[in-house]
């Protein structure tokens, strides 16, 4: 992750359909713990379902809504153009 600082961007900058993996968060402990319990663990992959307020992301099969302010404090590494079903990797069933 030597160049992470240069490629990590706030989640709020990603558009609908974009994919990324979690890099770091700058949130209070309780909010961070809640996000981790919802599946947004370190390096987990996510997909942007809706850009704006609220910001909706999907982590595996969980859809998480966050306010724009929270999305601005979640830093991710974008994965490039989305695939037709929203995820680059083959879907992990039930996951």
């Amino acid at each position, binding site marked *: 992750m030597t160049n992470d600082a240069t490629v990590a961007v706030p989640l709020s900058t990603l558009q609908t359909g974009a994919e990324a993996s979690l890099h770091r968060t700058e949130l209070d402990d309780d909010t961070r713990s*809640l996000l981790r319990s919802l599946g947004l*663990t370190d390096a987990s992959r996510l997909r942007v379902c809706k850009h704006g*307020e609220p910001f*909706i992301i999907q982590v595996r*099969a969980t*859809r998480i*809504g966050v306010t724009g302010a929270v999305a601005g404090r979640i830093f991710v590494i974008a994965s490039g153009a989305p695939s037709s079903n929203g995820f680059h990797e083959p879907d992990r*069933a*039930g*996951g």
Partner: protein
Amino acid sequence: MSPTAPAAEVSVASGSKRIALLGNPNTGKTTIFNALCGVRAKTSNFPGTTTAIRIGHIDVDGERIDAVDLPGVYDTRLNSTEAQIARDVLSGEQAPPPAATVVVVDACNLTRNLVLVGELLAYPGPVIVALNMVDLAARRGVKVDTAALAERLGATVIPTVARTGVGLPDLRKAISAAVSLASPGTRPTAPPLGATPEALTTWAEAIVADVVTQTAGGSQVDTVTERVDRFLTHPLSGMLCFIAVMGVLFWTLFTLATIPMDLIEATLAGLGDLVRGLLPAGPIRDLIADGIVGGIAGTVVFLPQICLLFFLISLLEDTGYLARAAFVMDRVLHRFGLPGHAFVPLLTSHACALPGIMSARLIPDRRDRLATILVAPFMSCSARLPVYVLLTSLIFADRPAMAAVVFTGCYMLGAAAALVSAIIFGRTLLKGSARPMVLELPSYKAPSLRNALLTAKDQGVAFLRTAGTVIVAICVVMWWLSAYPIVEPGGEVVALRTQAAAPGVAVAEAEALREEADTLETREAQAASFAGQMGRIAEPVFRPLGFDWQLTVGVLTSFLAREVFVSTLSVLVGNGDASDVDEGVIARIRAMPRSDGTPVFTPATSAAALVFFVLAMQCLPTLAVTRRETGGLKYPLIQLGYMSTVAYIAAFVVRHGLLLAGFS
């Protein structure tokens, strides 16, 4: 958790075994609990907290097994009351640990749900996995090899469809077998206690990769849900939809609750009359007919609104809409330090603050919940309506349009006071802003009527058991203060009755004389009662607002319920039937004199009284519910002190502002 908290509610009944039911929110856990335990389950606060848990029992072949339905949690290690309760129950902090734990898992979202299973496997005792919503998973092309999953977990796995009852007989048998086990058996890959979410996720992903297959065409991207979400959370369409949904909800609440409320009032009024007819006149008859029956009526009358509200909220929550609505309102409410969820308590408080405050349970964060509870009574409830009608009629006798404008202004003033107070509490007593909104957006689904009915029943019973008893006691005390001491009729009353009984007086004239005597006697009794005496004692406090002793009595008696203010004034101006406040009575109240002969209800005093009633905490039942929901006297006392101070200062400013502006 208080070590001294009573553990009776979660302890094992003598001779029975106990299981705990746990799961992520939105997995169908409540539906499974309801199916297993039926309508006999009880809701009560977990010892030392204000968080509700449900306790029921399951009968399997004549064997009784107690079941504790724990609040839905994503992770037992979170810093929340719900997670703390789960930890306490599982580790046996409050009572012996459960003989087995049933964890309800969403088959459509297995990885995240298995993280919680992984945590539970670290605790002692058998774990049963209820793999729920397998039908929905199958429709999405997800197939779970339950035998392989059971082997990997070292736990029993039962596929279920809670809504239709599929798998529930097997689940009962599994529970019966598990509570008889001495040890949980072999757990091949159980993660260690304290494993990080990342480690647990990696463990869960490995299991999912082995036991789940996805048929061709299946996809995690649900475009329909995404479109609906975009519509429902859009700043414009989302707000319009929110207004429409809330409009329907509150129209239903107001319309349907009125019917049973009227029925309850009529039934209990009839019961009071029956008691009066059966018992000989005296203090015992008055206590039962007016004090106790009146007190019960004053409590039970809230039940229809409370039950119907929770029924409707449960339906709405089940559909998945409430999570979206919370985001819509968060844009507005976050600026005032309130969470988006606060819209339900605040809107409900327009009907009545009691169900409003109770519905604050929807708010996950305690700081946010307290802020909402503290400000909810500022919203103009239906009990304020008759007071607004009376006072605006006094101020604008011949200008109904102006009365209507001021009437609307009262509602806006109450809402503005609630929002501004939320900011003040956020900077003082409850420092910090509302927690940033992070919510799971569950799948949309049809609501469960059975769950909604059971939720309504549970909340109604819980209200009667806790706040209800306090409210009955308050009603009895307030009745006693208003009715005692009993004074002998004055000379004028006796003279009128003598005159009515004199020979030669026409029947109609005698009737009128007796009516006048009754009215005068009621007025004398009210003035001589403890409440009347307190009104005279408290008069100097309210004098700066322009209130005389009569208005002060109205303020004091309205602590029972705000609408009592109107009937008190009606009696004080000599209206025999306190419930019938017509134009003539309003005219008499308008002309009500002070001791020095000048009118009480000048425009300045009427406006001050109106502002006072918009802002004051004139409702002891609300304080009883706040005490119940916050777990102590601290917050109801703060609520009473704060609202009374704000109301007093605002009324003072209004009165003296109007006087300075040249109004009398």
